[in-house]
């Protein structure tokens, strides 16, 4: 059975974004770059959440000016995503603060060199 690409496009895009971020994490030579790549990995979850909540012809789940029976997209995944974005921003701030501490203590931002100093 062939995989229909257009029917699973959000799944594939999410996998691609995840792979790009993970590639950055694996090859990173700077802690700030590493934190940003981790952010890219996390953004793949936004693509997949919005993707699985989509419904053909569905509108936004806000019924202020449309009748309540209008077909709408999944509101649960959107609620998940919105809290996720805010939490990601604070967690990135925490990671950047840690990177700053590493720089003052170890004098380097390269993850490989930090391991070498310890080992």
């Amino acid at each position, binding site marked *: 059975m062939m995989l229909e690409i257009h029917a699973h496009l959000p799944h594939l895009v999410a996998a691609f974004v995840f792979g790009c971020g993970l590639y950055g994490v694996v090859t990173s030579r700077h802690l700030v770059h590493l934190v940003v790549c981790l952010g890219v990995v996390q953004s793949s979850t936004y693509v997949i959440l919005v993707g699985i909540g989509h419904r053909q012809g569905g509108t936004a789940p806000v019924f202020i000016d449309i009748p309540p029976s209008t077909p709408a997209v999944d509101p649960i995944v959107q609620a998940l995503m919105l809290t996720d974005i805010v939490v990601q921003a604070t967690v990135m*701030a925490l990671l950047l603060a840690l990177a700053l501490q590493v720089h003052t203590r170890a004098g380097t931002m390269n993850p490989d060199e930090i391991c070498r100093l310890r080992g």
Partner: protein
Amino acid sequence: MSLRKRFALFFFSMGVLGALYVGSLVDLPPIGHGIGAYAEMLLEIAVPETHATDVVAAVTFGYRAIDTFIEELILFAAVVGVSVIMRRHSDERDATERELEHPLMIHPASSESDAVRALTAALAGISLTVGLYTAAHGQVSPGGGFQGGIVLASVPLLVYLAASPERYLRIAPIPLLEYAKALGLLAFLGIGFAGALFGQAFFDNVFPLGPRPSSVVSSGMILLLSLATTVEVSAGFVYLLTSFVEEALRQRLTK
């Protein structure tokens, strides 16, 4: 591990993972054809039951308020973590730094460019209005505590760019931020306990639902939780910004 070995391991594991992933997609229903039963049910009952016309807000602060509370705990813990990590011990400060009251006070003018000052001064008022509007109307139209809180958090930073660090610290003093982020979380928890004490369960709505859906004072608990979140998120983010701006100025000073 050498870079070549690392590449080999990465591409091998990504290949295996990718094959398994694509294989698992074959049996999944295609995107856009139907949503979960829970979502269908919420779309049907949310507006009459909660009087919130924005179902996303009804889910965030109503049906799944307990999840949002846990997310707020993560946010709170991350902000506390940053403050613990960024705080300098007294032996780390040098003599000149110890004499000065606060590193933000040292730097005379924040921005040398008139264009930046004019633009940020103009934007500060607009951002404040948009932030308050977004935070207060979350239950009616797209918006809510998280979005409004973020917009509001940008206001002190705009003031910092437009005016001076003194002004920044005057409108967003650090003790106030510390109290506000704790109070935001406590208010959220308190509304949850109000449901447990006077209603049937934790985060059960015991507040009046208001006259009709699409009215700003409707939706009871959802509006209150959204406002508590606004306080928590904006105070938390301004606190983070203060920590990083402080650090940047300190680095510039010691150079």
